[in-house]
């Protein structure tokens, strides 16, 4: 009987995701994962390219990339066989149900480009797997079994560039976003069996980040601004966008507000900082091996053909909307240079 009951408990644990899920918010509204991915993807794609361009050598959670030829690395001549970059990962369980992770990303001449520190609380929290680590993949939002996460990005001098603190209770989840120590955004999610809401509060802040020959500044002197999105379950889900005075907004108004208050003033400057820190790493080239983008390429060709022949235009319309959703949710990452 004991054996049966323990198997039953495990069965329930393994199938816990079967239970009713929250009503999803519209995909055009960026969530925590999307917002962080807006700038973190810049850095993640550099990590992928390092693995494709340099020989790796591994030992105890430490990966060293070496070049097979002499190269100029961050302005300094580096001989073949010398390290050009390294990734270090460390994790520990500092307390029961708490996982502490630290990743150190080092570029040319042993200069630390970025450091990530993560403290996650919850049941059975597990470290990143190796393949996700070397490709810069990481889930920022809380998973089902997690109750809180503190995620920080720091530079080599231990200065904090970005921080997010996410906490959840039964029906609420809140995320506070910080840029160089200044809180700029709070998102609060509220879930009921028949509705989901996200409340965005943009705070006043004055953030400055200075590096050699570069600086970033983002200041918002205005009083805090809030807006929200609500979905109510019905035969067709009812979506409404509201401003701080609970006046209805169109989707377009809502997205403009989001762009003007969050993406433009803070998230894009952080992306610029990530780009700056990518210069700590050696140059990398991208080769099209046909493995990654083939499906996308084929779909684009088919839809281009539909447009050329003026056929199935409704399918093209739906397809473009799906692409927009995929970009917004970080499933398609744009690695093109800015001027293209």
């Amino acid at each position, binding site marked *: 009987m*004991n*054996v049966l*009951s*323990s*198997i039953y*408990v*495990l069965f329930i644990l*393994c199938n816990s995701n079967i239970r009713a899920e929250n009503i999803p918010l519209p995909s055009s509204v960026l969530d925590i994962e999307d917002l962080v991915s807006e700038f973190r993807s810049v850095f993640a794609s550099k990590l*992928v390219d390092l*693995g*494709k*361009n*340099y*020989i*790796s050598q*591994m030992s*105890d*959670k430490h*990966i060293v990339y070496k*070049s*097979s030829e002499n190269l100029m690395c961050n302005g300094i001549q580096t001989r073949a066989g010398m390290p050009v970059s390294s990734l270090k*990962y460390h*994790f520990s369980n500092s307390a029961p149900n708490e996982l502490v992770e630290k990743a150190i990303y080092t570029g040319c001449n042993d200069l630390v480009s970025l450091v990530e520190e993560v403290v996650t609380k919850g049941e059975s929290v*597990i*470290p990143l*797997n*190796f*393949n996700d680590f070397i*490709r810069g993949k990481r889930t920022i939002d809380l998973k089902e079994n997690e109750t809180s996460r503190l995620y920080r990005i720091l530079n080599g001098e231990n200065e904090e560039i970005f921080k997010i603190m996410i906490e959840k209770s039964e029906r609420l989840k809140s995320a506070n976003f910080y840029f160089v120590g200044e809180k700029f955004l709070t998102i609060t999610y509220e879930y009921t069996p028949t509705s989901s809401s996200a409340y965005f509060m943009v705070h006043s802040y004055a953030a400055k980040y200075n590096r050699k020959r570069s600086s970033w500044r983002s200041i918002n002197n205005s009083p805090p601004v809030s807006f929200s999105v609500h979905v109510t379950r019905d035969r067709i889900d009812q979506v409404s966008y509201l401003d701080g005075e609970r006046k209805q907004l169109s989707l377009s108004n809502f997205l403009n507000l989001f762009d003007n208050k969050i993406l433009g003033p803070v998230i894009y400057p952080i992306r610029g900082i990530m780009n700056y820190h990518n210069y700590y790493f050696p140059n990398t*080239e991208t*080769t*099209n*091996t*046909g*493995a*990654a983008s*083939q*499906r996308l*390429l*084929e779909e684009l*060709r*088919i839809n281009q*053909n539909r447009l*050329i*022949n003026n*056929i*199935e235009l409704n399918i093209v319309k739906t397809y473009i909307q799906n692409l927009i959703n995929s970009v917004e949710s970080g499933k398609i990452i744009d690695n093109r240079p800015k001027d293209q």
Partner: protein
Amino acid sequence: MIKLTLVLYLFFSAKIFAIDISVLDEQYPGFHDFEATCFSPIRMYLRTLLSRSVIVGHHTTAYNLELKGINSESIIDFRVAIDRSIERNKIVENVNYYFGNGHAFNYIVTRIGDNLSPIPDIELMSFQFSTSDKLKSYSLRIPEFGVDFHRDIGEFLEESYFIFSAINMKIFINTSVANNEVSRNYTFSYRKLNKSQMNLNVLVVESADFWPMIDYVHFLPDVGMIDPKKFYELLGDLNNIFVKSGAEFLDIMHNNGFPKII
């Protein structure tokens, strides 16, 4: 009971780190990727052909169609016939396009596996057949072009080849899994290649640590270990062969009576 719970927990969590063929999926192209590259133009062409045609006659799995010219001044008649042979674990689907000018085009899709169902006619006619991993074997032959693409999928071994006689293209991709290693070998020859044959190998080794690390080692058999940059460049060359062969397919189809519609 605690011990049992722990053992079962370890059993389930061990899956997180178990190495399998999918470790190659993201960065090392396999059969499905190359097939998609190669057939992209032909799929696009046939989709357009069928979407711009009207069915004027239909008898079980044979269709008479009419393609109207862009300005509707010309009409091309053609016929598509599908023959199916369905056995317990094997389905062979043979598609024939016949044009009024006497030209024909034929391809045969053979699939072996459990719980197979026929490919819907419209998908089969427009070259939209998936090479799902549930299959044990899949092959596509286009006799007139000398095309034979084949894939066998086993639990620990996956073997595939692409032969396109018209351009002397022969490509073999073998992937094997053993203990904590996955190995994939690409062997290819092509009429425009400088060497008679090229060999590429990637070996993926998972360490037996508490936090398993995965090492990707790249080889060029006659050279030895090479850096990933060189490996990916050569893999890019291999991909280009498929891009070019896709374009050649379309040329051959036009020479075989298919109207130019794109």
